[in-house]
């Protein structure tokens, strides 16, 4: 494994739930980005567990403004610093999937179009967790959430996961990557690459949530790996639009992944088949992005 600096810029003492996937990523990311960094946190779990006054877990400056404007706030910080002769500072937004796929997509698209010189990280825990596990555009098909309950008529989320990374690739930005906390070497390499590039950089990092997904807190990393194996989450990167698949999925049955999580417990074979079919199609679509 890579050598990372000992210094912790995201320190112990944060209040994330046991088994949360997000702080694994944030801790690594802060080691990669280093002290010459300013962070932006929108409203999400990370803000609450890592940036609550006065127990903040960050040793770098950060700003919180609102929920849906992460991309433009990070851009504003960067442009302001640039004008003050501090253009070498890394400015990084850490947004959730809800703050990215839904309410924040307008500001995200605008900043990407302008090719703002920022790093935007979406940690994907597949729901609005901070507000109590409501569905987001990133919640997978079939999943129970508090707004897609298992009812007599409808059980779980009817719709499918929104593919934000492909939307970002369509913006022609310098770097788009998907990663997972279950594949740390790949994730670290992508964080490093993002740090060293200029312009708009988008990373979506899969980060399981035991509280919202209802699984054993010891299985966070295992589930993150299984999601990649079964094709529900593909690891790839797009440099100036050129896509490379970093790990070919084994296409293990989606069923094995689903049955470890309470959020999918109610799913009928038919529903699981639908999700399997979606995974198959996703791999077809993702692999088709690679131009030989």
């Amino acid at each position, binding site marked *: 494994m890579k050598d990372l600096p000992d210094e912790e810029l995201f320190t112990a003492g944060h209040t994330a739930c046991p088994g949360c996937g997000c702080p694994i990523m944030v801790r690594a990311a802060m080691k990669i980005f280093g002290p010459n960094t300013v962070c932006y946190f929108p409203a999400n779990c990370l803000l609450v567990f890592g940036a609550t006054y006065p127990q903040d877990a960050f040793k770098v400056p950060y700003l919180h403004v609102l929920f849906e404007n992460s991309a433009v706030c990070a851009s504003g910080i960067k442009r302001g610093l640039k004008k003050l002769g501090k253009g070498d500072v890394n400015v990084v937004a850490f947004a959730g999937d809800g703050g990215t796929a839904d309410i924040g997509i307008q500001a995200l698209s605008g900043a990407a179009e*302008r090719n703002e010189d920022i790093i935007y990280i979406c940690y994907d825990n597949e729901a609005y967790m901070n507000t109590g596990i409501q569905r987001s555009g990133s919640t997978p098909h079939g999943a129970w959430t508090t707004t897609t309950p298992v009812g007599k008529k409808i059980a779980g989320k009817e719709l499918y996961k929104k593919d934000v990374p492909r939307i970002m690739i369509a913006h022609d930005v310098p770097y788009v990557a998907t990663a997972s906390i279950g594949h740390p070497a790949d994730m670290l390499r992508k964080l490093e690459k993002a740090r060293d590039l200029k312009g708009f950089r988008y990373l979506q990092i899969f980060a399981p949530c035991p509280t919202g997904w209802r699984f054993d807190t010891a299985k966070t990393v295992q589930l993150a790996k299984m999601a990649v194996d079964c094709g529900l989450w593909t690891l790839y990167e797009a440099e100036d639009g050129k896509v490379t698949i970093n790990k070919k999925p084994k296409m293990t049955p989606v069923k094995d992944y689903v049955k470890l999580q309470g959020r999918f417990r109610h799913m009928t074979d038919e529903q699981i088949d639908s999700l399997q079919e979606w995974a198959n199609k996703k791999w077809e679509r993702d692999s088709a992005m690679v131009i030989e």
Partner: protein
Amino acid sequence: MVEKRVVTGNYAAAYGALLSRVDLIAAYPITPQTFVVEHASEFVNNGMLDAEFMRVESEHSAMSACVSATAAGARTFTATASQGLALMHEVLFIAGSAHLPIVMPVINRTVAGPIGIWAEHNDTMPQRDTGWLQCYIESNQEVLDMIIQAYKICEDKRVLLPMMVNLDAFILSHTVEPVEFPDIEDVDKFLPKYKPEHARLWPEDPMIIGSFSPPEYIQEIRYQTDESMNNSRKVIEEVNSDFAKAFRRDYYGMIEEYQTDDADAILITLGTVTSTARPIVDEYRDAGKKVGLVKLRFFRPYPTELIRKIAEKTKAIGVYDRAVSFGSGGPSWIDARSALYGYNIPVINFLAGLGGRDVMASDVRLMFDRTLEAAKEGKAKKDVVWIGTRGVEP
């Protein structure tokens, strides 16, 4: 060299930003503000102003960019109107609570519905409690001068709050008037570079802004914003005098009085209606009717003490509003009544010009007549008077 040119209010606003050497502009177009953004774009693209320009995708983002860049330590500028300001609403509070001295001209325009583009104050007045100072403007010269003054007031350590500089749609924004442009070197002397100490995002000296805060901390933050708003009254007067000394134009601070000393009835106006009312004061004085005028320049902070002093020297007060708080009268009148609690004189509200309807000299005469009548009777016939409304008796 001081230069005199005939320009629109929107040009004056954009040029005010140039003279203030703003570091960053973030904006989104909306009628009747568009020319502010267009002129500012030209200044930057022509190399007349060295600023970052963010052509963002919404007003929500424009204000977010200004908030974030100011938090990073930059001097920022934006402009908007109406729906754009309504869309910014959520972000405005952050500037007030984080003490970010952003300056924003707002071209006062009707807020839908129904959709309209003409002058009304129902865009800015509902932003009353967001922690922004609000100044209402009467002429294009005042637009230019107030953008410069606004940075000086807002960046003062006793204040550190944002300000809206409000000008009536079309009546100022699109109308040309002669405006004197001060020398940029003189403006530099009056308004030095912004040196942030309380809010900046510099890795060499880490600072956190806007953390998730439990009840143990937020009440003090509210108190500090309130304190800053209170402090700004004195700073507004000081900056006005300094400006008058440096540039020989005096706006008299929070309010401007005209013929108030021995007046039986005084009308309080704001914005461009003031220019309609001033000659009518002369007309009434010539006819032996003792009326006076107060131009309310600042709505936030409200000049509470000054309005009390006005009440002490007159018998009745009329308050003109170009917005209404439905069921409760005009916002400016509500504040006047609150300031004058315990003062035993009639305070009448006149609503006219809503949706951008012209406010005619005859409308203003009606305001003076009613206020004079109340002065004589010792009470008002009606608290809230709708003027020029079809089917409604004033």
